[in-house]
Structure formats: structure tokens, C-alpha cells
């Protein structure tokens, strides 16, 4: 059984059919790509999967659990984490606190325990700090742990966002254009990071991307969206040679 099973997903905004009859099946451990020209509805699909929008029709199953129409908090708890196309870090918080905010639902103590500094506060905070540093080390950000997130260079901000998403302990990680705005060197490094994350955390990843080099380099399977509809899907090499896909990208 696939980890993520999406059937017949659709949503309209007013008269605009943003996503129509979208199907996808992702197996555990897969690195799956979602590509398409601008305005094809890729990010809308992400927003539907993470509960930002409620789908008009269709169903989403994660690991056998029906998460259709649940809100984003419930979906995060069910095991989907995401990053954003335009980076959304907590700018005025330290790098470590960004990750610790991601750990929010993994470690618990009550507000009262926090205010009165009861023993559990110290115990849990220590665990959180250790876990956060462990994650930062994976992305070689441990040196910058005390910096404000806003002061990180661009490439590291991207990494921090992935680290923060992983802190919620997801089953499925959604990356929305992780290479946007990166130079070729940074993209190369990012590709390595993504492959590493996949192996190290045994993670299933769904990735939106424009950079064809990155897509063909690391994704095994692709789905191509155009005008909210699936244009093609299958093995990366086959899809990228598909005539309809080339037309959609390059024109007639």
C-alpha cells in the first residue's frame, strides 16, 4: 500500500478550476517530483495536501488514514510537513529556536510548568535542545545555532526550513521549490542534502521544482501538471521525453 494516495482531488476558486482530477500515489521511501509551468497548480496541490485549502472533491489517504478535509494542524500531526516556496522562517528567533518551534508537538510540558520552572521544564527543554542540535548538525548548521534566522545566508535558510519541517517528525516531507533562487553550486549542495535526508531519515519526499537538472538528477518518478490537470506521470526519463510535456514547457 502506498504511503500517500490521492484520488480525484479537485478545487475551484470562483470560476477557476485550479486543480482538477489530480491523482498521485507515492510509495514509502520514494522521492517524487511534481513539475509544471507557472500557474499549473503545483503549490495549490501542496496547499490541498497540507490542509491550507479544503478540497471540493476527492480523497487523500496518508498511510491508510483518511486525512481529507482536515485542518493543517491535524494533518501535521498525521505526518505531513512542508517547506515554502518563499522562505517562511521565524526571522526574529534564533536558528535553534526555529527548530525547537518545529519540535512543539513532539515534546510537552504545560504553560504553568514553564512559568514556574518546575523540574519537568528543565528535563524537557534539555531533551529539546539535544534533539534540535542533532537536527542542526545533520544540516551542518550547529555553528549558527544562536544566530537570528534572518541573518543566515540564503542557502542555509533553505536548509533550516527543511530542518524545521523534519523536527515535526513527519512521514512525508513536501518541498516547495527548494532550489528557487539558488546558484548552481548551492543547487548541487541542496541535491546532496535532499538525498542525504532521504537516506538518513528514511524519508518519503514530494518535491515541486522548476530546475530540470535537479529533478532529473534525484527524482525517480514525476507527475507533470498543466492548467490544474495531470499531463503526464511515470518514470522521470520517460516523462521528460514526453511530447506533451515538452510542448507545455517550450511551446509548439
Amino acid at each position, binding site marked *: 500500500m502506498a504511503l500517500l494516495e490521492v484520488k480525484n482531488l479537485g478545487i475551484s476558486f470562483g470560476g477557476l478550476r485550479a486543480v482538477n482530477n489530480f491523482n498521485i500515489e507515492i510509495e514509502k521511501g520514494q522521492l517524487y517530483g511534481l513539475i509544471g509551468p507557472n500557474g499549473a497548480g503545483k503549490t495549490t496541490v501542496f496547499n490541498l495536501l*497540507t490542509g*491550507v485549502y479544503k478540497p471540493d472533491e476527492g480523497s487523500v489517504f496518508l498511510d491508510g488514514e483518511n486525512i481529507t478535509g482536515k485542518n*493543517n*494542524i491535524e494533518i*501535521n*500531526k498525521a505526518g505531513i*510537513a*512542508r517547506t*515554502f516556496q518563499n522562505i*517562511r*522562517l*521565524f*526571522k*526574529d*528567533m534564533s536558528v535553534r*529556536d526555529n527548530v*525547537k*518551534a*518545529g519540535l*512543539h*508537538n513532539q*515534546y*510537552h*510540558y504545560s*504553560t504553568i510548568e*514553564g*512559568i*514556574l*520552572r518546575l523540574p519537568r*521544564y528543565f528535563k*524537557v*527543554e534539555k531533551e*529539546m*535542545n539535544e534533539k534540535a*542540535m542533532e537536527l542542526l548538525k545533520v544540516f551542518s548548521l550547529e555553528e549558527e545555532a*544562536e544566530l537570528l534566522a534572518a541573518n543566515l545566508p540564503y542557502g542555509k535558510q533553505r536548509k533550516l526550513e527543511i530542518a*524545521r*519541517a523534519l*523536527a*515535526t517528525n513527519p512521514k512525508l516531507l513536501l518541498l516547495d521549490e527548494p532550489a528557487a533562487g539558488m546558484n548552481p553550486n548551492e543547487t548541487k549542495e541542496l541535491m546532496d542534502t535532499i538525498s542525504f535526508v532521504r537516506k538518513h531519515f528514511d524519508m518519503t519526499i514530494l518535491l515541486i521544482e522548476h530546475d530540470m537538472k535537479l529533478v532529473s538528477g534525484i527524482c525517480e518518478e514525476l507527475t507533470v501538471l498543466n492548467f490544474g490537470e495531470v499531463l503526464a506521470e511515470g518514470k522521470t526519463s520517460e516523462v521528460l521525453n514526453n511530447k506533451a510535456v515538452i510542448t507545455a514547457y517550450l511551446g509548439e
Partner: protein
Amino acid sequence: MKNRLSKQTKNNLITYGIVVAAFILVQIMLSMGKMSSLMQGLLVPLCTYVILAVSLNLTVGILGELSLGHAGFMCVGAFASALFSKCTQASIPNSGFRFFLAILVGAAAAAVFGILIGIPVLRLKGDYLAIVTLAFGEIIKNLVNVIYLGRDSSGFHFSMKDTMSLNMEPDGEILIKGAQGITGTPNDSSFVIGIVLVLITIFIITNLINSRTGRAVMAIRDNRIAAESLGINITQYKLLAFSVSASLAGVAGVLYAHNLSTLTALPKNFGYNMSIMILVFVVLGGIGSIRGSVIAAVILTLLPELLRGLNDYRMLIYAVVLIVMMLFNWSPKARALREAIAGKFRRQKKSQEEV
């Protein structure tokens, strides 16, 4: 990691230290008789303002929402606790214990109002939220002005018209008399209690900020959408921060009410002027900086009184100080200068240590 924790703790300790040092200084001046009665009368209001500024900083600096109704919550705390103290004056003769209960009553009442007002208001953002909180603050003040409450052998009587319509027995006692407010509140506040409450407020706010809850609140402030995607419950944490802030404003109200024998809701003490003054403390002290709020509240409260002798120039100097403080806290050049000075001190200290 240890370094950072100690840095945080050190920061907090400095804040506590400043408050305690100020307390000791005042006590010394009092014992030497060097303090005018005017200044003595200012001590408890000073504590009130500090509590208000620190608690508003939770809403403005940490939650990142501009609230202009803080004086309204202070009003709720003041009236709820004054009413409580007046009713229980006979049954609880121990003034310390009664005041302790009054604080709890005031804090709880303000927290309830914080939640009730927060539920609709926190759906708004930015300027809209500021305007609506301003309105709620005024509504609270004006409502309090038309409440008549009396007590006689058959229980409580309530009216919103006048004392006659309370229909009380002749031996009844009027507790709240509309615009004339509550008279005869026991004078339970003192500077010592005020300082203790200031310390407790700072303790609650700083510990809240540096905890799991505080991180969630700050995450919401920095990026709501990202916070939601991490499974942080936006409504719950916004409401929590807002009501904690309101309930501490209520505590300030309790302190304020028990320092006066007659409590009335005037534009001067619970109106929007007051709310804006508290906001001025917070902004000038540095948004998000607890210590800054404390210092700004003290300086800006004392200054007009200290300059009383200069009479005509008083407000002029006050204005100049406002501008200088603003520049000192916010202009990038002043910040750089401040850091340079701090760096110099650090280097000196280091070289001294090496010697």
C-alpha cells in the same frame, strides 16, 4: 549551550536586580526622610505603571499585536477587586490575606474579559486590531460608569439607571454608585507589595517567553502560516498570550484601586489616554524588551514630577526626552554606538582580567 542559558538567566537577573536596587534606594531615602510626600505618593502608581508596561509588552512585543485597550483590563481588575474588598472587609479582617484574594479576583476577572474580548478581536490584524481594542477599552470604562450595585439583607441589587431604581431596604449599602464609583476601598496597597507584584510580573512574563509556549507565540508573530504548518494552534496561543497580558493588567488595577479610597472610572485613569501612555512606555523601552519597559515606565512617570520646579519648560523637556529615548533605542546609528561602547567595556574587562 550552557553559555546561552546563563546569558538568558543573567539578562533576567539584571532586570530583577534593577528593581530590587530601586526598592532599596527608595527605602534608604524614606528612612533618611529625603523623599517629599509627593514622591511618596507616586511610589505605588509607579509600580502599577511598570506592571502595565511589562504586561502590555507580552501583547505588543511577543505576540506582535498592537493593543490599545490595556487600560480597560486594568479597569476590570480594579473594579472587581475593589468590589470584592469592600464586600469582604467585615468578613475577612486580615488585610494581607484579603488583599491576596483581591489580587486573585482582579486577575481572574481581567483574564475572563481578556478571553471574551480576545475571541472576536484576535481575528483581526494590525491597525484593525488596534482600533477595536481601543473601542473595547472605552466600552469597559463607560459601562463601569453606569453600573449601580447595592447590597441589603435580601441580597444584591443591580441597576443601570440610578440609585433609586435599586429598590433597596433603608439599611442597604450602596457598593458601586455609577459615575461616582466605589468609595471606601480599604487602603491595602503599599510600595512593598507593589514591588513584589512587579517582580512576580517580570518573573511570569520572562519565564513564559523562554518556554515552549513563548516560542509558539513568537513563531505565530514571525510567520503565522509557517507556525500553522508546524502544527501550532494559532487561536489557542494568541488567546493565551492576550489573556495573560490582560490578567496582569488586572493585577495592576488591583494595586491601583487599593491605593485610593475612591475609585472612579475617568478618561484620565482608565481611558485611551492611559492605554496610549502604556504603549509609549513599551515602544520607548524597546518592543519585546522587558527591562526597557521597566526603565521607560519609571523615567517617564517620574520625569514630569521631578521637573515640576521648572514649570514652563516641563513638557518641553519631557518631549525632548521622549525623542532622545526613541532615537537611542531605535536608530541604527545609536544602536551601533551602543554596541561599540558595550564592546569597549567588555574589552577593558577582559584586559583587566588578563592583568
